[in-house]
C-alpha cells in the first residue's frame, strides 16, 4: 500500500510517498502506519514555482545537506560535506549576504546523466522552514525510522581564525620585508675601525647637569598658567564677585573632595601645638582658591598645614565662576574638621542615582566581589564593623564613598576603598566634583572576621 506524508510549513512543503510495511504490527487502532520505504519525494517553496523532485537518494541527500548547513548557519564554522557519489546531489551554498542561501539540486536526467542544476534562492526564514520540515521528518518515528537527526560538532581544524587571511599575513610580510631592509641597511654600514680611547674630563659634569635641570624647569613652571596670575587684590575681588555655591549636594561633594585632598597631604600632624582654623574658598572643580586664617590662627602657621601646597592660583583667563566656602580646622591632636562656612541650606542628596533593580543587583554583586577579594580577616582591627556608603558608576567604578560610623571614618585607610576610589569614572574632578553620571548607592560593611556585606543604600 502506498501512502503520503507531508511536512508543511509557511514557506516550505516536504512531501513523501512511500510504501507501508505490512509486516509491522500496528499497535492500537489509531497508530499511524509505518512508512518503511520512500519512492518519491518532493520539496517545494511558496513564492517559487520550482519543485525539487526525486527519489530516495534525493531525500537522503537533501536532509543531510540541510541538516549540516543549519549547523553551519548557527556556528559560522564550515562542516566538510563529502559529495555523495550517487546521483541526485543536493548542495546548500551561502549567498553573498548573510541571509541569502542557495539550494542547488542536480537531478538525474532520463538517460542517467547528471542534468542541469536547479537553484532555489532562500532567505533565512525560508531556510529555517526547510530545516524545520526536515527536522519534523527526522522526528517522525512512523516515517523512515532509519533516518534520524544526527548532529556532531565539527573539528577545530575547520574553524576559521577570527582575523581574515590578509590581515593574518600582514605581520609575516612586514617581518620579511623588515628583515630585507635591515640586511640592506647593515650592508651599507662601514666595518668599524680602531676605537679611540675617550678623553677624560673630571669636575665640571655635575654642575653642568644641575644647571641644565634648572634651566629646563623654570620656563615650564612659568608657562603652565594660561594668563597672568592674579595679585592678592584682584583675587579678593574675583572671589567677592564669584557666585556662592549653595546647593547642598554640591557643597557636600566639594567638601568630601576637599577633605580627601587635605587629609591625604597633611603630614607632620604631631607638630601642631594649637588648633589652626581657616576660611577656605574652593572652586566647583575642587581647587582651593584662597584661604585666610581665622579665630586667632597666627598668619605664618599655614606652613604647618598642606594648604600652601594645595592652593591653586587662578589666572586672569580662568576666573572662578562660583565658590564654596568652608571652615577648616587642623586640630592639635591631628584631626581634620571641615564644614560649610554658612552651613547647609537643605539636605544634601547623592546626585543622580541608578535605580533599576536589575542593574543594582548586578553592580552590588560586582562590588561585593571586588571588595571581598581585597579584604581579609583582620583580628587587630579596632572596630568590629566599618560601614560606608559607596557610590558606584554604571561601569562598576567606585566614584564616591562616605564613612557611616565613627570607626569607619577613622580607619578608612585600612579598607580597600581609598585605593579603589576612581572619582574620574563618574566625571568627578574635571569641571566639577559632583558626579556627572548616575551612581548606584550601596551600604558596605567590612567586618573583622573578613566578611564584606553589600546592600542597597
Amino acid at each position, binding site marked *: 500500500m502506498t501512502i503520503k506524508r507531508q511536512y508543511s510549513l509557511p514557506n516550505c512543503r516536504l512531501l513523501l510517498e512511500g510504501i507501508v510495511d505490512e509486516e509491522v504490527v500496528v499497535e492500537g487502532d489509531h497508530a499511524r502506519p509505518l512508512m518503511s520505504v520512500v519512492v518519491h519525494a518532493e520539496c517545494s517553496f511558496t513564492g517559487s514555482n520550482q519543485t525539487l523532485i526525486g527519489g530516495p537518494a534525493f531525500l537522503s541527500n537533501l536532509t543531510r545537506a540541510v541538516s549540516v548547513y543549519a549547523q553551519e*548557519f*548557527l*556556528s559560522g564554522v564550515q562542516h566538510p560535506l563529502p559529495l555523495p557519489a550517487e546521483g541526485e546531489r543536493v548542495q546548500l551554498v551561502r549567498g553573498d549576504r548573510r541571509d541569502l542561501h542557495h539550494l542547488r539540486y542536480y537531478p538525474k536526467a532520463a538517460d542517467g546523466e547528471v542534468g542541469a542544476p536547479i537553484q532555489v534562492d532562500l532567505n*533565512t*526564514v525560508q531556510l529555517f522552514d526547510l*530545516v524545520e520540515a526536515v527536522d519534523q521528518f527526522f*522526528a517522525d518515528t512512523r516515517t523512515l525510522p532509519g533516518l534520524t537527526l544526527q548532529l556532531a560538532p*565539527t573539528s*577545530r581544524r575547520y*574553524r576559521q581564525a577570527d582575523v581574515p587571511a590578509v590581515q593574518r599575513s600582514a605581520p609575516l610580510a612586514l617581518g620579511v620585508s623588515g628583515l630585507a631592509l635591515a640586511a640592506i641597511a647593515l650592508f651599507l654600514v662601514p666595518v668599524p675601525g680602531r676605537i679611540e680611547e675617550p678623553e677624560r674630563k673630571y669636575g665640571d659634569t655635575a654642575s653642568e647637569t644641575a644647571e641644565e635641570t634648572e634651566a629646563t624647569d623654570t620656563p615650564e613652571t612659568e608657562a603652565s598658567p594660561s594668563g597672568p596670575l592674579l595679585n592678592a587684590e584682584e583675587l579678593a575681588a574675583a572671589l567677592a564677585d564669584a557666585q556662592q555655591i549653595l546647593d547642598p549636594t554640591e557643597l557636600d561633594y566639594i567638601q568630601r573632595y576637599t577633605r580627601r585632598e587635605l587629609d591625604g597631604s597633611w603630614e607632620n600632624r604631631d607638630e601642631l601645638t594649637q588648633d589652626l582654623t581657616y576660611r577656605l574658598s574652593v572652586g566647583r572643580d575642587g581647587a582651593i582658591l584662597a584661604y585666610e586664617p581665622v579665630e586667632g590662627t597666627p598668619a605664618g602657621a599655614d606652613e604647618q598645614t598642606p594648604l600652601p601646597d594645595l592652593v591653586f592660583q587662578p589666572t586672569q583667563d580662568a576666573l572662578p565662576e562660583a565658590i564654596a566656602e568652608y571652615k577648616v580646622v587642623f586640630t592639635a591632636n591631628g584631626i581634620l574638621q571641615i564644614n560649610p562656612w554658612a552651613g547647609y541650606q537643605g539636605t544634601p542628596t547623592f546626585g543622580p542615582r541608578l535605580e533599576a533593580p536589575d542593574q543594582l543587583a548586578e553592580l552590588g554583586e560586582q562590588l561585593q566581589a571586588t571588595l571581598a577579594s581585597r579584604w581579609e580577616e583582620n583580628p587587630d582591627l579596632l572596630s568590629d564593623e566599618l560601614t560606608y556608603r559607596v557610590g558606584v558608576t554604571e561601569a562598576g567604578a567606585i566614584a564616591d564613598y562616605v564613612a557611616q560610623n565613627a570607626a569607619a571614618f577613622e580607619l578608612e585607610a585600612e579598607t580597600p576603598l581609598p585605593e579603589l576610589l576612581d572619582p574620574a569614572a563618574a566625571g568627578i574632578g574635571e569641571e566639577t566634583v559632583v558626579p556627572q553620571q548616575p551612581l548606584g548607592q550601596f551600604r558596605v560593611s567590612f567586618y573583622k572576621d573578613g566578611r564584606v556585606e553589600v546592600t542597597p543604600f
Partner: protein
Amino acid sequence: MNPSASLSPDYSPPSRPQPLILESLPDPDSALQTCSPRIQQRLDLVLLAIEALELGGSEYMLATARELDLASVIDNRVTLWRLRCTNPWRRSYTRSTLSLRQAKALAIVASHRARQLTVLIRQLLLAKQQVEEKGLPIEQHFRLSEYLERFRAHFRSRMNARRAKVAFYLAHESALNDLALDLLGQLLFCTGTAGMQRFWISLFDGEVA
C-alpha cells in the same frame, strides 16, 4: 496542638537528582568538561538578544528556568548574572568557566524563551527582508529598530569597551546591528523541533578535536 509540630525540625528535602531536562542535550565530547570562552560568549550574546526582544527578559529567563526544573542550576537573578559574566566581553568578566551542566541550562533556557518569541522573531526577520528589498533604511521599521536600539543599549552598557572586538562594535553601529540581526537568525533556528539540540551542538563547532 499545632499539627505542624509533628514535623521533625531537622527535616530536609531529599537531595535533588540531576534535572532530567539536562539529559536532552548530549555531551559533545567526553574530553570536554568545561566550556571555552567563545561558547560562553555566544550563550551570553544570545541571551542578550532575547533581552532586547522582550522587556524584563531576564525575569522571564528565571521563570523559565524554574518551570523547567532548572532551579538547582540557576536559582536566582544573581546566579544567572554570574553565569552570564563568563562572557569575556563583559565589563564584569569573572574569568571563570561554565561547566557543561551550567552551559546546558543556559542553552535550554535560551531555546525555550526563543520558542515563546517565535512569532516576533519571524516577523522581525521578514520585516528586515522587506525593508531591505525596498531599499529603505532598517530604522524605517518601528519594531525592528526598537529591537536594534535595545540591543545596542544593552551591549553598550554591559560590554567592556577596552576589548578590541567590543570597541569595534561600539564604534561601528552598522556592525553592531548586523550582530543583532545575526543573533535574531540564530534565535529563529532555536525555535524549531530540534532547535535546542542544533543550537547546543553548534556551540561546539570548531571546539572539539
